[in-house]
């Protein structure tokens, strides 16, 4: 289901970019150009599979696989709708309902850096290597901020279980109202983790040709591209789950039509999807708004500004909970 979001997002990004720059964007393949990613995909698959000279072939092939694996796996724990009871069986509309869901997300997404690092190293190209190194240092730095902001949210909701976190947020008690600082930190860290502008130094094309995927072509390059867009979808889904009430928000509509359990699940799923799409639009919007940071600026922002703020936020949250304010 959400795999299909990634190619759509490629098209979406190009259309929104064109809209922001007062152009038309891809509009030839299919109605309003929506089949453009299909054409791109076919082109990528039919390209020659080549390996650069002196590259480590196994690792070179493995790198995009790791990237894809990680971005697909994180999505497994995000709940799309409340548990549905059909014929006495309770179905969970998520792949795996873990009671340490949030930790699982952090653990798996911390592996994402391997794909980029290995890709950069195994291509045997100095630009790729530099891109890989930049990516790894940037992702390690911002992972801390992300973990700390998530820790404050988990403290506030009192559980690691994503399904329970979403349940607590019903009735517009959204996380973003109670944890605005966490949301801001998570947003910045998410931009940095997905290597998007203004944090796209790992592939800064003006300095590094193409960064870690300079030597990649065909579907292996497609794998990296796909993983990047999937990452954005996953991170938007995480933000919706943690801060925007997950699948809550359209209860008035299900009450209006007096929905059956299944229809209710569909309505909840649409609420989740609409919120995710709005956040995706935001991601694209940011890309065409801000210029790229300099490398030292990114490091300073990560370690000297965002990390202290996130630790302070965690402390304040802990104290407020201790005094019984929440």
């Amino acid at each position, binding site marked *: 289901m959400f795999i299909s979001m990634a190619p759509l997002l490629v098209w979406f990004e190009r259309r929104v970019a064109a809209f922001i720059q007062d152009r038309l964007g891809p509009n030839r393949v299919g109605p309003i150009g929506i089949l453009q990613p299909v054409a791109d995909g076919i082109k990528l698959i039919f390209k020659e599979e080549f390996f650069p000279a002196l590259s480590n072939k196994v690792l070179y092939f493995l790198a995009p696989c790791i990237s894809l694996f990680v971005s697909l796996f994180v999505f497994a724990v995000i709940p799309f709708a409340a548990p549905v009871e059909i014929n006495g069986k309770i179905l969970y509309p998520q792949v795996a309902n873990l009671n340490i869901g949030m930790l699982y997300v952090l653990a798996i997404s911390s592996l994402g850096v391997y794909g980029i690092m290995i890709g950069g190293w195994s291509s045997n190209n100095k630009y790729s290597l530099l891109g890989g*190194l930049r990516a790894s240092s940037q992702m390690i730095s911002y992972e801390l901020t992300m973990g700390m902001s998530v820790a404050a949210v988990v403290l506030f909701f009192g559980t690691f279980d994503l399904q329970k976190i979403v349940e607590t947020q019903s009735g517009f008690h959204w996380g973003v109202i109670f944890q605005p600082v966490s949301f801001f930190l998570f947003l910045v860290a998410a931009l940095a983790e997905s290597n998007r502008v203004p944090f796209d130094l790992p592939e800064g094309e003006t300095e590094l040709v193409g960064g870690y995927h300079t030597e990649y072509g065909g579907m292996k390059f497609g794998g990296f591209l796909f993983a990047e867009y999937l990452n954005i979808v996953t991170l938007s889904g995480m933000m919706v789950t943690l801060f925007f009430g997950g699948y809550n928000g359209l209860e008035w509509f299900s009450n209006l039509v007096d929905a059956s359990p299944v229809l209710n699940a569909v309505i909840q799923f649409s609420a989740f999807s609409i919120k995710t799409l709005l956040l995706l639009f935001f991601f694209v919007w940011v890309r065409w708004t801000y210029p790229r940071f300099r490398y030292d600026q990114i490091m300073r922002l990560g370690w000297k500004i965002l990390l202290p703020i996130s630790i302070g936020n965690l402390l304040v949250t802990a104290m407020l909970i201790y005094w019984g304010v929440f």
Partner: protein
Amino acid sequence: MDWFVYGFSALAIASAIMVITRRNPIISALYLCLTLFCLAALFVLLEAYFIAAVQVLVYAGAVMVLFIFVIMLLNLDPEKMIVEYFQTPRMISVISALLLFGFLTFVFWTNNITGERGYDFPVQITQGGGHLKAMSSKLFTTFLLAFEVTSILLLVAIVGAVVLAKRKV
């Protein structure tokens, strides 16, 4: 279930052997990651989900990334590295390996590990409110001193690293 245990154990041991036999430090480090991943899988099979997640998060996700980062940054020539770093202290490594081996044999021979000790089984943990609760209540009551001492140890390591890095060459 048992076959998963055997499979992951075999994979962990095999990749651990690969760690010490590969010449290229980056390949070794990646095999070490695989070993850690297999250990996490074993923790999952033991129903210790929290430890499994932390294992991946801390070791595979943070420590090993830093290792590989440093190796890539130094870009060491594999042949040179063996000569420079692994030739001189051979006696020391042999002695410490023997000591570790002797210690492990001692523990096994004296039957200190019987598989029955301890009082927290998965069933009781689930009844007591989940792994996180069981783990943190133990950590912040019974083992509080050890926990705090460990954090001071880590702090000392950080300060030491900063001092070493900031020293004028």
